[in-house]
């Protein structure tokens, strides 16, 4: 079986080479892409501004949009929440022992910021922002990095002229950069070898080490671990015993709520397990008290149609337009009934 791929490759190579020299092999496969089809998908922006849509925006308008859709992960000041990326600061640290790579300190082109926000942000609802919002948020992130003034109107015409502080900080791959001779004997002085061991207990190795005090092997376990460490840290300061969740018998759930659990895990949990985008965490009673008082109908309506509150932002169906109304409703009931 391993002979044939080679011969197929050789054959294809021969065919395509011959075709390349004379004329491309015309397989007559594929359909012409129309201008309209291309326009819908051609979202990329280049440093020279090619691809930027018509429009403009500024940091003043961007602040509100940023706080609504970006700040829950990236921090109100771009400082980054948890392990989410830091956007601001770090200038002059790239040669430090612990460099801080941000839009301001590291990114070579402003076009990259517009392109990335448009194609991938916000994390939970990509491609949901208008071009106007992308211009506004791009301007705000540049403003927070002291690259443009607050009232600067960032536009299709001038974005490519923005000079980023680290534009000249890159060079094209020049590897191989090391040459190791293939020495076979007396390659090092055995008396001068220094050995450094692994840090113990930082990776999950319970699967092969008997009794290993392994850290969490999953992200949800990691969050539990961090939460309990945080509780212990606070307890050490206050001198109080860390609060232990009361082991009460879980209340029976409705059939709809039980049906909603799989949707919750597949779709809603991204935000509602960790509190992303200001989402109330399942099991965090204080985050749910007022919401529960509003009644299920309102919660379901917010989940279906989207909601922008003072602490967070939820797109319709959490950005999962593919989910049926029933699936979303059941997932809401699962989350509500999980609070009991």
């Amino acid at each position, binding site marked *: 079986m391993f002979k044939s791929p080679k011969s197929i490759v050789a054959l294809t190579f021969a065919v395509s080479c011959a075709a390349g020299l004379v004329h491309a092999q015309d397989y007559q496969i594929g359909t012409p892409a129309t201008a309209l089809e291309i326009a819908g998908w051609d979202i990329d922006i280049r440093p020279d501004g090619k691809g930027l849509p018509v429009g403009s925006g500024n940091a003043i308008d961007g602040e509100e949009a940023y706080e609504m859709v970006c700040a829950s992960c990236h921090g109100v000041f771009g400082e980054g929440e948890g392990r989410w990326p830091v956007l601001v600061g770090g200038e002059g640290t*790239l*040669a430090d022992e612990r460099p801080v790579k941000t839009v301001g300190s590291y990114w070579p082109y402003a076009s990259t910021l517009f392109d990335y926000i448009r194609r991938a942000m916000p994390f939970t609802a990509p491609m949901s922002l208008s071009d106007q919002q992308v211009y506004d948020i791009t301007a705000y992130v540049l403003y927070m990095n002291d690259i443009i003034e607050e009232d600067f109107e960032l536009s299709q015409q001038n974005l490519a002229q923005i000079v980023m502080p680290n534009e000249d900080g890159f060079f094209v*791959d020049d590897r191989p950069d090391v040459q*190791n001779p293939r020495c*076979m004997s007396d390659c090092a002085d055995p008396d001068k070898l220094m050995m450094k061991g692994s840090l113990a207990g930082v990776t999950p190795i319970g699967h092969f080490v*008997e009794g290993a005090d392994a850290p969490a092997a999953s992200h949800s376990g990691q969050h539990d671990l961090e939460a309990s460490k945080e509780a212990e840290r606070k307890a050490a300061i206050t001198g109080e015993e860390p609060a232990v969740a009361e082991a009460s018998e879980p209340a029976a759930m409705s059939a709809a709520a039980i049906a909603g659990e799989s949707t919750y895990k597949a779709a809603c949990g991204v935000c509602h397990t960790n509190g992303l985008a200001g989402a109330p965490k399942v099991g965090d009673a204080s985050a749910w008290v007022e919401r529960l008082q509003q009644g299920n109908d309102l919660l379901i309506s917010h989940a279906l149609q989207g909601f922008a509150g003072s602490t967070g932002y939820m797109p319709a169906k959490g950005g999962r337009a593919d989910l049926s109304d029933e699936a979303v409703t059941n997932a809401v009931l699962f989350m509500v009934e999980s609070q009991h």
Partner: protein
Amino acid sequence: MQDASEHLTTNDRRDFLRRGVSYVAGAAAVGGASIATASGLSANLPPNEPQWGRQLGTGVVENPYGLPSRHESQVVRRTVPWLTAESISSISMSPIQDLKGIITPNGLVFERYHAGVPDINPDEHRLMIHGLVDNPLIFTMEDLMRFPSVSEIKFIECPANGGMEWRGPQMEALQFTHGMLSCCEWTGVPLKVLLDAAGIQTEGKWILAEGADGAHMSRSIPIEKILDDTLVVYAQNGEMLRPEQGYPLRLLNPGWEGNTSIKWLRRIEVGDKPWHHREETSKYTDLMEDGRARRFTYVQECNSVITSPCPENPIRRKGFLEIEGLAWTGRGKIKGVDISFDGGVSWQPAQLKGLVLDKALTRFSLMTQWQGEPWLIQSRAYDDSGYVQPTLAQLREQRGVNSIYHKNSIHTWQVAPTGEVKNVQIT
């Protein structure tokens, strides 16, 4: 051997523990009936007729899509949760400590997502080719599968493989030090054939490849690579791509950092310059000690690691021992691998075994004896470009410790007299 086993009690216990799990599970499967003899040995061992020889097994299509033996349940992908904020934009590692040969089974290929795994209906998936071409085209999956297909065995490696250890060792298992690495037989169409169909214009020097997932992951690729060996693939190891690997369509840039092999591929734009997108500026650039950074660091340079022994595979018996491992290079073929037992002071050549293919995992082997002596065991691969895998000290001297990516240095395992294996670094 009697003497040896006395010295190996720790390992024997672990070995027994591991097997014990199987025995318990086996007992449960037959209704909890005790089948152990008075001596404590399994009644399934000679001279007894084992339980499975005295009853019928399951019939055909019990599992229409087959599963591994339940006794192999420890052979799974794993992650190190603190590496990323959550699991949607994250990475898992292949259990290369448990794999044989050079092919990674589809369910064990390492995962790297920037916005999770999309659920794509292949009937509604399209590949668009446009930009500096004469005829912008859209292909359905059916269209793409009408082109003459090629199948090639190639590795894929994340450039961050090993990247947590620039400053010092901290991963306590091979799966975590080197598991962002897999190798499959991929089936698809050379991208060059598709670009020929669209008629690439002479100014076309770069392409942008883009995914259909929520990250719309994008990378700029120079046209020379496309003309060389870039494929658009729809199958791996004989079946359609797994969702985790880009179903129904992905790019494959053999030997280059894994993220350039865009998954869930939906668009190829031809241009005259690179795009400098987020995943080739903010990420996947290599910060040097002076604060400047390398970009477009595409090639995965020659690398190797010993897979047995390793932390997960300690030496369990004195006497004959086969040292085994994997070597790979993005520049071509592995030419040879040397082994050191003394931390790199002296070396001896290993054998390459099985297939030695271009830009594929290559397995090496060295037969030896172990009598309980402590080892600092290393492998050092070299490829047909003449490049020899470097030491960590050499890489640090050139690059410092903040480049994250492309740490392909010689790796050291410390073998203790007990046979236990630890991850260490030698300087």
